[in-house]
C-alpha cells in the first residue's frame, strides 16, 4: 500500500482495477481448478470403485473355488480401462491371489499394502480397495490402481486455458481501465494541473474547470472558492507588505539619519576632545613660553597654584618659592587691601578680563609697574584666577613722555588752526577794502582815467577776486574736520539731482545718473561738496561740443564705489597725483578761473570717511574720478580724522 502512495492517480486507478480483476479471475480460476480436480478425483474414485466392484463381483466365484487363473482372467478385463495400471485380488488370508499389470507397468508399480477397503491418492496413483463379499462373508479384497497422469494432464491443460483466459481478460481489463480511468482521473489531474500552475506562477486568478457534479466537481468548487479567498488574502498581503516596506524604508531612513547624526556627533566630540587636548597643549606651550608672567591662584584662598618661567623672572623668585604661597606677597603693601591685592579683589568682583594696572615687588624689593589682566577659570572643578602680568615700566615712561609731547603738539595745532582761520578771515577784510576802493576809483574817476588806466584797474579787481577765492578755498579746507555736522540719512539720488540743478550746466553738456544710488549715513554738506566739486570740474573743463557726464555707483563687499565720468580733455598720467595737491591747476589761471583747492577738499573728505579716491584717464577721450565710501560706521571714522589732520 505504501508503494502505491506515491503513484500517479491514473496508475493507481489502473492498478486497483487490474488488481481487482486479476484477483477475481485468479480466485475463480483457482476455485474452478480445485473444484474440477475434486470432481475429477471423485469421478475417478467412483469410476475405479465401480471397476473394483465389478472385479469383486466377477472374482467371487474364482475366490470361492480358489481358481487364480480365472481371477487373473477376470482382472484382464481391466484392459479396456487404460488408466488402470494395476489390479490385484487378495484372498481371505490377505495373500495375493491374482494380479494384473498394465503392459509393462510391472516395473514401476508394486502391489500396495493390503487394506480392507477405501481409497488413497499417492505417488500419482489412485489406489482403491474393495472387499469381496460372498453371501455376507468376506472372502477377499480387490485392489485397483489408477494412473493419475491423464487427469493431471487434463488439469494442466485446463490450468493453461485458465491462465490464458486470465491473461487475456487482464489485457482487456488493462485496456479498458486505461481508457475508463480518465473518467475519474481526468478532472483530478486537471485540478492538480491548475493547483500546480497556481502554486508555481502564484497566479491566484486562475480557476479550475468543473466537469460534473460528482465529488470531484464539489472539490473543484471548493478549490475555486479557496482560490478566491487566497487571491483576496494575497491582495491584502501585498498591500500590507507594501505598507510595511514603506514603513521599513522610512524607519531605515530615520535610522540612517540618526546614525549619521550620531557619527557626526561622535566625530564632533572626538574633534572637540582632540581640540581640547590640543588647546590644552597649546595653552601649556603658551603658558610656559609666554613672555608675560602668568600666575594661577586659587580664587577662594588666593594661594598660588601655578606660574610660568616669565613669572619667576618677573618677581625674582624660584617656582618652588612661589607655589603654595599667598598671592599678596607679589605686591607692595600699598597695593594690598586686607588679605588680597587690590587688583585681585577687583578682578574677582567685576572686572574680569579687564586690564588693570598695579605694582609688584621682587624678592629683592625692587618695584615695577605692571598691567594685569585676570580671568576666572575652572580647572578640575576648582575656581582659579589666572592673572597675566606685563611689565609696563618702560611703556609707562614712554607714555608719559608722549603725553607731554602731544599736549605741546595740540597746543601748536590749535594755534595753527586759529592762525589760518584768523589769517584768512583777517586777510579778507583788507581785500574787501581794496576792492571797494578800486570800485570807487573806477566810478569816481571814470572820465579822468584813460583806457589803459581802466584796464589796470579791472586787472586789479580781478586779482583781488582771485585772492578772495583763494582765501575762501583755504577756509573751506580748514573747515573740513574742524566744523562738525550731524550725521543723517542721505538719499544720494536726491542729493545728486540737487547738485546738478545747482551747477546749471550749459545746454551742450548732459549729466546722467547711470545707476540707482544708495542711501548712506553721513554729514550731508560734505558729501554734497564732493559731488559738487567733481561735477563742476567736469563741466568746467569740458572741451567737446556734446558733453556727457555720467554718475555711477557699484556695490562692493564693504563699500560703495562711485564714479564720475566725462568725455572732456583727459589728464596725462604724470599729473594723476598732482591734481589732488592744493593750489595745483593744470590749466593757466587766465584761461580757467580756478583756485586749485576743489579736488584737495574732495580728497580730504573721502579720506576722512575712510574711503579712497583716484583717477583713470586717457588724454582727449575723457577721465573718470573714482571714490569709495565704506558701508558702515561713517561716524566712527571721524575720530581718525582728528589724528590724521593733526599728523
Amino acid at each position, binding site marked *: 500500500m505504501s508503494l502505491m502512495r506515491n503513484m500517479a492517480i491514473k496508475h493507481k486507478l489502473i492498478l486497483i482495477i487490474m488488481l481487482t480483476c486479476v484477483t477475481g479471475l485468479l480466485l475463480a480460476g483457482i476455485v474452478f481448478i480445485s473444484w474440477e480436480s475434486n470432481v475429477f478425483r471423485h469421478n475417478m474414485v467412483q469410476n475405479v470403485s465401480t471397476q473394483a466392484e465389478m472385479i469383486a463381483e466377477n472374482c467371487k466365484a*474364482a475366490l*470361492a*473355488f480358489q481358481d487364480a487363473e480365472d481371477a487373473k482372467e477376470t482382472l484382464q478385463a481391466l484392459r479396456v480401462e487404460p488408466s488402470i495400471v494395476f489390479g490385484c485380488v487378495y484372498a481371505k488370508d490377505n495373500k495375493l491371489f491374482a494380479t494384473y499389470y498394465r503392459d509393462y507397468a510391472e516395473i514401476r508399480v508394486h502391489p500396495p499394502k493390503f487394506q480392507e477397503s477405501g481409497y488413497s491418492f499417492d505417488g500419482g496413483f489412485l489406489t482403491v480397495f474393495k472387499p469381496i463379499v460372498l453371501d455376507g462373508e468376506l472372502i477377499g479384497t480387490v485392489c485397483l490402481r489408477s494412473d493419475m497422469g491423464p487427469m493431471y494432464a487434463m488439469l494442466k491443460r485446463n490450468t493453461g486455458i485458465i491462465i490464458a483466459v486470465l491473461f487475456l481478460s487482464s489485457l482487456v481489463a488493462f485496456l479498458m481501465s486505461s481508457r475508463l480511468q480518465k473518467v475519474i482521473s481526468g478532472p483530478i489531474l486537471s485540478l492538480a494541473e491548475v493547483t500546480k500552475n497556481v502554486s508555481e506562477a502564484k497566479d491566484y486568478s486562475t480557476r479550475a474547470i468543473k466537469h460534473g457534479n460528482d465529488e470531484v466537481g464539489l472539490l473543484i468548487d471548493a478549490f475555486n472558492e479557496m482560490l478566491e479567498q487566497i487571491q483576496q488574502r494575497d491582495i491584502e498581503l501585498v498591500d500590507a507588505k507594501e505598507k510595511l516596506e514603506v514603513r521599513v524604508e522610512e524607519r531605515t531612513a530615520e535610522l540612517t539619519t540618526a546614525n549619521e547624526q550620531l557619527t557626526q556627533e561622535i566625530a564632533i566630540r572626538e574633534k572637540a576632545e582632540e581640540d581640547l587636548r590640543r588647546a590644552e597643549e597649546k595653552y601649556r606651550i603658551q603658558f610656559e613660553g609666554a613672555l608675560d608672567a602668568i600666575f594661577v591662584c586659587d580664587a577662594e584662598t588666593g594661594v598660588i597654584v601655578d606660574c610660568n618661567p616669565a613669572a619667576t623672572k618677573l618677581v625674582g623668585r624660584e617656582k618652588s618659592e612661589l607655589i603654595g604661597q599667598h598671592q599678596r606677597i607679589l605686591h607692595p603693601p600699598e597695593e594690598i587691601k586686607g588679605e588680597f591685592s587690590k587688583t585681585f579683589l577687583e578682578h574677582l568682583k567685576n572686572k574680569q578680563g579687564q586690564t588693570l594696572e598695579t605694582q609688584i615687588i621682587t624678592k629683592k624689593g625692587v618695584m615695577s609697574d605692571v598691567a594685569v589682566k585676570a580671568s576666572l577659570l575652572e580647572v578640575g572643578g576648582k575656581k582659579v584666577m589666572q592673572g597675566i602680568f606685563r611689565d609696563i615700566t618702560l611703556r609707562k615712561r614712554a607714555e608719559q613722555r608722549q603725553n607731554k609731547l602731544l599736549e605741546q603738539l595740540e597746543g601748536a595745532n590749535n594755534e595753527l588752526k586759529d592762525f589760518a582761520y584768523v589769517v584768512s578771515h583777517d586777510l579778507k577784510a583788507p581785500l574787501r577794502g581794496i576792492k571797494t576802493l578800486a570800485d570807487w576809483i573806477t566810478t569816481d574817476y571814470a572820465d579822468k582815467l584813460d583806457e589803459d588806466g581802466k584796464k589796470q584797474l579791472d586787472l586789479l579787481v580781478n586779482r583781488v577776486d582771485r585772492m578772495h577765492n583763494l582765501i575762501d578755498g583755504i577756509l573751506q579746507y580748514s573747515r573740513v574736520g574742524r566744523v562738525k555736522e550731524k550725521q543723517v540719512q542721505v538719499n544720494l539720488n536726491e542729493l545728486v539731482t540737487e547738485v546738478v540743478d545747482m551747477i546749471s550746466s550749459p545746454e551742450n553738456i548732459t549729466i546722467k545718473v547711470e545707476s540707482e544710488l544708495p542711501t548712506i549715513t553721513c554729514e550731508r554738506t560734505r558729501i554734497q561738496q564732493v559731488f559738487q566739486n567733481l561735477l563742476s570740474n567736469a563741466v568746467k573743463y569740458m572741451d567737446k561740443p556734446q558733453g556727457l557726464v555720467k554718475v555711477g555707483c557699484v556695490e562692493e563687499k564693504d563699500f560703495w564705489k562711485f564714479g564720475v565720468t566725462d568725455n572732456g580733455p583727459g589728464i596725462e598720467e604724470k599729473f594723476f597725483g598732482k591734481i589732488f595737491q592744493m593750489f595745483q591747476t593744470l590749466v593757466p589761471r587766465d584761461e580757467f578761473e580756478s583756485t586749485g583747492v576743489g579736488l584737495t577738499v574732495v580728497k580730504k573728505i573721502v579720506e576722512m570717511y575712510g574711503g579712497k579716491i583716484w583717477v583713470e584717464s586717457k588724454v582727449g577721450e575723457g577721465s573718470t574720478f573714482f571714490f569709495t565710501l565704506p558701508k558702515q560706521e561713517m561716524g566712527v571714522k571721524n575720530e581718525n580724522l582728528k589724528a590724521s589732520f593733526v599728523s
Partner: protein
Amino acid sequence: MNLKGDKRQSCRIVRMRIRAYNLMVLALVLLMAAIAPTVKADPVTSSEYQVKAAFLYNFIKFADWPGEDTADSNEPIIIGIVGKNPFGDAFKPIENKRIKERQVIVKQFKGLGEQEKSGEKDKDEIDKQIEAIRKCQLLFICSSERARFKETVNLVKDYSVLTVGDTQGFLDSGGIIKFVMKENKVRFEISITAANRAKIKVRSQLLRLAKKVVGENEINGAED
C-alpha cells in the same frame, strides 16, 4: 609384483562374490523346500476333502433352487452325504456357517446297497431315508456308491437336488457336478442338462469355472 598382487586380490573378490551368489541360491532352494511340502500335502490327504467340503458349501452359493426366495429362513439347507463318508471332520471348520441366511446341516445317509442289505427288515425306514434324501438341497454321492450311481441319482430325479460326485462317469449317470483333480487342484465339471432337469439354475460364474460343461447349448434354453 604389485600388479600381480592386485590381480590376485581382484580375483579373490570375484571368487568370493560367486561363492556368495551360490549361498543365496542354496538358501532360496532350502526355503522353497520348506514351504513346498505343506502345499503339496494338502490335496493328497484329508485336505482334498476339506477343499471339496468348502466347494460344496460354495456350490450352494452359486446355484439357485426353485422357490428358494420364498422359503422359510428357519428351514435349514441340508447337505446330504450318501455312502461311505470320505470327508471325516472336513466339515468342522464350516459348521454353523449360514448360507443364504439359512442354517446348513450335513446329513449322513447310507448307500443304497447298504440299505438293501439291511433294509429288508424295515421298509418304512428306507422310505423315510429316501424321503430325507429327497429333501436335501445338495447331495454328495460318495465313490462307494459307484455301482449304484444311476439308481441313486434317479431317486432324486424329479426333485431339485444338486447332485455332486467325484467318481468317473458320474455325469454320465445323470449327476450335475463332478469333482476332478487337475494339476493337484480340485476342479469340477458341470452337466447343465442334469441341472435343468433338477430345475436348479447354475450361475454363470460357476459355469465359467467349470473345466467341462455338458449340454452347454442348453444353457439358453434353461434360462428361458
